């Protein structure tokens, strides 16, 4: 019985440690907001903040611009993304550890307009960069592109 109790304590501790590690990983910033006009927001782990130059963007962050607003972000690997009005995008995955060969940048454009300039991740591992949209997935081979998603009719 004692042993069981001890084991469950150990398990709890391990689970807690894993949880806090996951939280720490999620809150690590992967980029910063650099430009904003009008009203825009960055939501991370349930916390919504009004975007301003310097606002952190993390894995899981959702970016939203109001009608008439726009916003630009520069990521750690020099990927530059900017958004026009009434746009919604999330950062689904971001890995940038070139020395370990860990590279990934996945985002989802739910609606609105995007200007994308690819960075180091696309240069080192083109297959690791995608933009998901409701009707298709965009793959990037080192370039600048523009994408527009019209809202559901």
């Amino acid at each position: 019985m004692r042993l069981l109790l001890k084991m469950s304590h150990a398990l709890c501790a391990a689970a807690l440690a894993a949880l806090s590690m996951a939280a720490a990983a999620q809150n690590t910033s992967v980029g910063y907001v650099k430009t904003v006009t009008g009203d825009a927001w960055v939501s991370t782990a349930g916390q919504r903040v009004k975007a301003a130059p310097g606002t952190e963007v993390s894995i899981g962050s959702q970016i939203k611009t109001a009608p008439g607003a726009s916003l630009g972000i520069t990521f750690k690997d020099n990927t530059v993304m900017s958004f026009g009005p009434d746009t919604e995008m999330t950062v689904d995955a971001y890995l940038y550890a070139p020395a370990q060969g860990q590279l990934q940048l996945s985002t989802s454009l739910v609606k609105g307009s995007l200007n994308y300039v690819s960075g180091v991740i696309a240069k080192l591992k083109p297959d690791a960069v995608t933009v998901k949209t409701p009707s298709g997935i965009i793959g990037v081979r080192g370039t600048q592109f523009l994408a527009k998603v019209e809202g559901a009719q």
Partner: protein
Amino acid sequence: MKVRTTLPLAIKRLVLTGLACSLLAACAGPQSYVALVPSPDGSLGKVVVKGQQGEQLLTRAQQGALLDGSKPPFDVSSEQLQRDFGAAMRARPAMPEQFLLYFETGGSELTAESKALLQRIVQSALARTAVDMSVIGHSDTQGAADANEALALQRATAVADQLRGLGLAATTMAIESHGERNLLISTPDETPEPRNRRVEITLR
């Protein structure tokens, strides 16, 4: 008045159809689509779309494809791109800027030329809005790998301290060491190479 009424019917029809087409084209461009444009450095890459209806590859500037992949690529006019993406393009942050600083052998003493570059880095950083920077230290392959890991971190830290002293005290800096793992000029082990003894600074 007289002239207009005597226009042949066929021409009238043509004019009307043309007008309707151009009106339509102006109002309803492609709906959900992606367009390839040259990068800020002038180079042109590629974009591939995997949609529910097919796969398309874009290789030319101002070529577009529907996001569902249903149609072959088409040309998109500059006017159309402006209409659809003008705001997103104007919101694009300044492109990141990179600087390389070099060191005398074995320590964190900058070469004279690199020392002279510090002030320019500070000026460029201050000219940006909400700048954040990374300071990554590197070594050549002379000496043990773990010693080089420490040496490269010492170089990055030394440069960061100098930049803070020159006016960047409030700037967000990510300081890292890549040791001898990320050579600019690839060399065998135990090779002194001035171009590998460096700190890479990126302003974002």
